[in-house]
């Protein structure tokens, strides 16, 4: 069947948490939908980058017990994940998070897609060009088998990097490099025993000792280990500076992104080998899994009909056209030495208005996920996967209804 002559109602660019939810929502609204994803599976940060917690799923509250902030695709995926892992929400400090397993997320995403008869999925395919005809978008795609074309009435940019803004040549926004959220390199490590709190603390001490003695690079101070919940399976999460200095980090530069991968792998190898020598716990441990790509937290953002501000998130402001709630505190990782959290007043959830999903002055186009229209501070809250499911679902529904 020749797809190039077919016109889809909705095309979704990027199959991460936002794009997956957008495509599912659009198809459920009755739109013939195509979802375009560059990797061989869906899930984005939660699969290709091995980010293993869903943040932003639950309301921020003092009382025990986790309560979903955004019913719909977000809670549906969370419920499937809980069934798959047997692990429910965990309170970390003041926050409820859901441990999620990247392998299960891949399967859950497949199941969601396969259960929508109106949805087509294109894996191994990347958007390279775009033009607007009278009544549809013409998408140029690079597939692993060569160039392809797809046409669609309405577009959802869930690329994470506002790729459509770049390709259309319209104005977008990005904070200066020293203030960008730092990237994270997450990898799998097998150990013979279950990593508990005591082992984790002692591991931290061993890493500092290794850096102090000059056996480990200073980058290793950005590394934390966590059990996947399965015996012997752990994730190492390494926050990286992204360059020689913070100012050298450019999440839109292919050479810089390449260095994240090589630096991440090199540091991971050194630390795991060193721990294996020095620690009884890590004896015989090995790296079991590399990510497909390092996790980028922030890059280019759209400028929409409304720009959500950090002060709105801090005050828990609500809008008439809210489509989702932002419940994750503004989590700043502007250095590779751990987060700084800014909580909203009275634990209030902030509203995300539909206008943040609508690029200013362009019709038949919606945005979802971490590149919606916000400032740098508000992005530190809305970028998490739990919230991306919700903005994705809203964008997909709006695209199908053309509202």
């Amino acid at each position, binding site marked *: 069947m020749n797809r190039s002559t077919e016109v889809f109602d909705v095309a979704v660019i990027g199959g991460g948490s936002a794009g997956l939810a957008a495509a599912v929502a659009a198809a459920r609204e009755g739109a013939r939908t195509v979802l375009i994803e560059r990797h061989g599976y869906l899930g984005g940060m939660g699969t290709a980058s091995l980010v293993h917690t869903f943040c932003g799923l639950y309301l921020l509250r003092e009382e025990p017990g986790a309560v979903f902030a955004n019913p719909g695709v977000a809670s549906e995926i969370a419920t499937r994940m809980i069934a798959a892992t047997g692990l429910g929400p965990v309170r970390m*400090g003041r926050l409820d998070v859901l441990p999620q397993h990247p392998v299960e997320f891949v399967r859950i995403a497949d199941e969601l897609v396969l259960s929508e008869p109106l949805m087509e999925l294109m894996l191994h395919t990347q958007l390279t060009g775009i033009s607007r005809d009278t009544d549809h978008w013409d998408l140029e795609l690079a597939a692993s088998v060569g160039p392809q074309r797809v046409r669609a009435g309405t577009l959802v940019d869930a690329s994470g990097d506002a790729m459509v803004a770049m390709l259309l040549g319209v104005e977008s926004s990005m904070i200066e490099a020293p203030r960008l959220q730092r990237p994270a390199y997450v990898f799998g490590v097998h150990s013979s025993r279950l990593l508990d*709190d*005591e082992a*984790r*603390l*002692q*591991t*931290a*001490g*061993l*890493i*500092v*000792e290794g850096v*102090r003695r000059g056996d480990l690079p200073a980058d290793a*101070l*950005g*590394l*934390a*280990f966590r059990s996947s919940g399965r015996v012997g399976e752990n994730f190492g999460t390494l*926050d990286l500076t992204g360059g020689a200095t913070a100012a050298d980090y450019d999440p839109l530069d292919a050479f810089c992104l390449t260095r994240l991968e090589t630096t991440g792998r090199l540091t991971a190898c050194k630390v795991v080998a060193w721990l294996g020598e020095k*620690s009884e716990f890590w004896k015989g441990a090995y790296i079991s899994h590399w990510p497909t790509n390092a996790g980028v937290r922030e890059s280019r953002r759209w400028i929409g009909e409304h720009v959500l501000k950090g002060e709105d998130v801090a005050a828990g402001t609500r809008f008439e056209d809210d489509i989702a709630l932002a419940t994750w505190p503004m989590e700043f990782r502007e250095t590779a*030495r*751990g987060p*700084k*959290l800014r909580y909203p007043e009275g634990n209030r959830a902030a509203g995300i208005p539909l206008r943040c999903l609508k690029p200013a002055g362009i019709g038949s186009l919606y945005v979802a996920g971490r590149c919606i229209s916000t400032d740098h501070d508000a992005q530190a809250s809305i970028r998490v996967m739990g919230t991306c499911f919700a903005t994705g679902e809203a964008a997909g529904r709006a695209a199908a209804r053309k509202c």
Partner: protein
Amino acid sequence: MEVSKKKTPSPVELIDWLNDEGVLELEWDFPEDGDLFTAGLDSMAVMQLVVAVEDRFGIELGPEDLTKTNLATPTTLAALIAAKI
């Protein structure tokens, strides 16, 4: 100055110092026996703490010192530092 560097901190001084160093963000009225892990002391913050303690107090905390009991509260952490000075 070596003399002031070696001064043993009180739990309250330690709370201010943890904030100043950016290791943790504790409320001004954070209790001396408040739970530091609940307040965000994860393994990455522990690494920052070890580096900062070495700079400020001139002592090296090793893996054997970093137990849940020793790091539990400002009081236990002050006691750990005092014992090492």
